């Protein structure tokens, strides 16, 4: 009983503090403020308002994803982390708005296709190793599996700007003069970027340097997303649609082929 | 003697096929019955022969009292029936003598030819009197076909057929029926 209670306490700590809610909010605010600065040219701070059901839901899901990350000092034991939980729960966050608000999701069909591609990038590398532990997948450095890992990683990065809604396809409610901080997106920065670090980089050690390494890589990924987002914004909505329809989706098919061929070869 | 009787049986059956009047039908039935009785008597079944004779007699008597009061043998348009009688007879003769082997060819011929011709008579659109006459002969020929076996079936089938023949001949067919 004591064991259960202590486990519940540890997991609660992970969910709420590190790498859970508090960390998510801290990382997310930094990334989101940076994005609004480069996007709208103004520093926008979060407004003090009662969180909506959408925000609550996304926060809840992001917490669950965050504890699946291979962040150093993560109280959740590595054996208890699961990439499917991370992938599926993160997928839920994308549709929370469609479900719980009156707003329409822009280009939902295309977003769904991109989410398929992202899902392939997350789960594809797990097919051959037959493991679902995120840090195990990150640790895979077998030369025969590297093509899958690299291809999937690149696909992941390609999908990220769209999944974080950094592209110029915006919903009507966003077309307002006064720029605002997107709380929902803020809550998604760490889960998305941290998951990339977890899956495609060897896990960091449980020490200060490890923490620094993990967050440095994650921040770099976020930065990459900002740059990519800006490029997309500059090129406009049509170009963004074209890129994802004509480049990313066919590339995902290639990645799938690589996954299948690798599985066959290594069987 | 058996050969003559067998031929007579076929002849009687042919007359039944070719006749529409009560006299012709009765004559055909009488000849067939007599021939059957002779064949059975010679086969050593005296009781059965008597039974057949009595049944045939009753049937002929009843036939002479109902139906159109003419001979009606080979009325116009009965060429097909004539061909049937001769063809059926020849086919039966071939089967009874060439296809089937062993003793008792006359009995086989008599039974098969009458059986075939009477069936054809019933299946064709016939008057009620002709159908009833054919049925009597058919019943008797079924009993005769039982005699084809190497071992004698005993008098039972003949007596049963005789009783049936009497039953058919005394039967009153409902008048409301079409012919």
């Amino acid at each position, binding site marked *: 009983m004591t064991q259960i209670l202590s486990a519940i306490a540890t997991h609660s700590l992970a969910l709420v503090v590190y790498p859970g809610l508090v960390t998510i909010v801290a990382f997310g605010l930094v990334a989101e403020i940076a994005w609004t600065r480069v996007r709208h040219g103004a520093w926008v701070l979060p407004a003090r308002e009662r969180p909506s059901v959408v925000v*609550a839901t996304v926060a809840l899901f992001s917490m669950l994803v965050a504890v699946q990350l291979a962040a150093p000092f993560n109280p959740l034991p590595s*054996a208890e982390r699961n990439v*499917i939980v991370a992938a599926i729960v993160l997928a839920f966050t994308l549709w929370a708005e469609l*479900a719980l*608000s009156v707003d329409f999701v822009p280009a939902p069909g295309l977003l*769904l296709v991109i989410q398929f591609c992202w899902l392939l990038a997350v789960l594809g590398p797990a097919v051959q190793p037959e*493991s679902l532990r995120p840090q195990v997948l990150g640790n895979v450095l077998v030369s025969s599996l590297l093509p899958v890992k690299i291809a999937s990683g690149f696909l992941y990065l390609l999908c990220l700007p769209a999944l974080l809604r950094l592209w110029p396809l915006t919903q009507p409610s966003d077309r307002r003069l006064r720029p605002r901080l997107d709380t929902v997106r803020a809550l998604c920065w760490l889960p998305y970027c941290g998951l990339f670090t977890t899956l495609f980089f060897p896990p960091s050690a449980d020490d200060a340097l490890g923490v620094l390494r993990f967050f440095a890589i994650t921040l770099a990924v976020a930065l990459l997303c900002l740059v990519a987002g800006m490029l997309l914004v500059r090129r406009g909505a049509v170009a963004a649609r074209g890129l994802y329809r004509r480049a990313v989706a066919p590339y995902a098919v290639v990645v799938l082929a690589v996954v299948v061929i690798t599985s066959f070869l290594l069987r | 003697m058996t050969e003559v009787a067998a031929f007579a049986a076929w002849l009687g059956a042919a007359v039944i096929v070719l006749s529409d009047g009560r006299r012709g039908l009765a004559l055909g039935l009488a000849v067939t019955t007599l021939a059957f009785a002779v064949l059975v008597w010679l086969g050593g079944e005296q009781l059965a022969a008597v039974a057949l004779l009595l049944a045939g007699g009753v049937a002929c008597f009843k036939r002479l009292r109902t139906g159109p009061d003419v001979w009606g043998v080979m009325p116009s348009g009965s060429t097909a029936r004539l061909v049937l009688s001769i063809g059926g007879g020849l086919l039966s003769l071939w089967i009874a003598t060439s296809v089937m082997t062993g003793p008792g060819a006359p009995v086989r011929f008599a039974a098969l030819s009458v059986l075939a011709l009477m069936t054809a008579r019933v299946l064709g659109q016939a008057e009620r009197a002709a159908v009833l006459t054919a049925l009597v002969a058919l019943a008797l020929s079924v009993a005769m076909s039982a005699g084809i076996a190497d071992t004698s079936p005993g008098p039972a089938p003949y007596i049963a057929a005789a009783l049936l023949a009497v039953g058919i001949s005394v039967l009153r067919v409902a008048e409301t029926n079409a012919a």
Partner: protein
Amino acid sequence: MKPGRGLVGAGTWGAVLALFVLWLPVRSTQELTLGPLGFGAAFDLRLDAVAFAFALVILIPSAVLLTLQPRSWQEGTVAAVGVGASMLAVEAGGILLTALAGGTAATLAVIQLDIEDIRAPRPPWGVLLAAWLALSWAGAILQVAGGTAVYAAVPVSALTVPVFLLLAAAALMASGLFPWRGWAAQLWSRPSLSAAGMAVATLYPLGFYLLVRAYEMGDGRYPQPLLGVALAWLGVLVAFGAAVRAQSATTRREYLGEVIPGCGGFALIAIAVGTPVGLAAGLVMLATVAVLTACLPLLPDRAGPGTLLTIAAAVGLPPGLAFGARVVGLAATFEAGDFLGLIGIAGAAAWVVAMVAAARAIGLPAGRGHPASETFPRVAMVLAALILVAGPALPVVMSAFANPAQSEITPAVPGSLGSSLIAVVTVQTNLPALTLFAPLVLLGAIMYGIAGGFGVRGHSRPPLFTMPGALALGRLRDAARSATLPEQYQSIINPRALEKAAAGGRPFFWIAILVALAYAVNR
């Protein structure tokens, strides 16, 4: 409550009680043999962990629906007998008795649906009859080839690929597990949902039961691993098909019709993978389906918290029971090796489409309403909430409900589940459901308490996408349905003339047939 309804409800709850009283004290197989019935099957009843699990899956929703929903005495009687027949199908010791009982349950379900509304959609009787006849044939082949069709005694060598294919076809037809819109989806478009709920409760689990028992007959395996893979892919198609239809639904009722087939698809994936983890997860998914089967007919069509909770529970929102079971089921595909993980990826993709459909459905117009007298919003809400908050109890549900059944049918297969009450221990990972999900549920309650209400209005939403070629397929189907013999050929094929020729009693025709017969025999 009418006395009839009370009686039928009490009887079903009595059956649940009897099941617990019989099973829980011993928790091992109990058999009752009452001699041969005369058509090759003996009256052998067998209550083992598998039968117990499926009996609960059938009885719980049936009991809830029979207790609450109003029915005429004919409907109530037919429904109760149908539940009995369905129970006999899962407690039968052999295939032939299962076929007889399952066939009876199918007949009674069809009759019950027709009593309620003869013009409303119902499962095609022919398909159901074909399913149980196919199973009978499979049983007959097993008896001829293996000497017996008793589940526990069938020789492994007797379950050949053709026999398994027959059995699988029977299972798929019995539960309507097709990628296209099967009967389990069509039933929900009926004006009343009292008979529909009972039909799904009594018939839908039976197909899965056959697939699970097939493992027992094959000593924990299907005759060929490829068969399991094919079935798992079919499961993906079933789930994906349901999700695609759901995301293009025009009303919420239409969406809810696709909930059970969708869940069934995921259960089929997990069961067909064939690992202990997959089987256990599949059984838990079926338990979720059972609760949803009780919930959906009681749900009013109007929007509200009940509807929201039901949709959330059905789509597998974390940290619900459906979520946990699906995660474990998909994990099983990766852990099964041999690039079965691709099935897992496809399954996850289907789940994502289902998420979109669910998110979209919350704001859809209600659609055709079923009588308020047969809806119980509070009960529906409680049942849905139960699925959502039962996530932390996943290890308990697995240990008490699924693991015994799994170890009954696949005792020899490696990679069994660890029996922990805190976490679901699989081959490579363990899902700390109790210690991770329980705090999450608590945090969720707090956060939703703090958060403001949500403003979703019922308005029509365009479908996210249409399946390529769906229109062409529809046109093809309509063309096939409306196909008639060209007029110039109608004079050649004249059924009436044919009937007249055959039934005219013409002696010449008879003699010709006789000659033909004689010729055929003497050739």
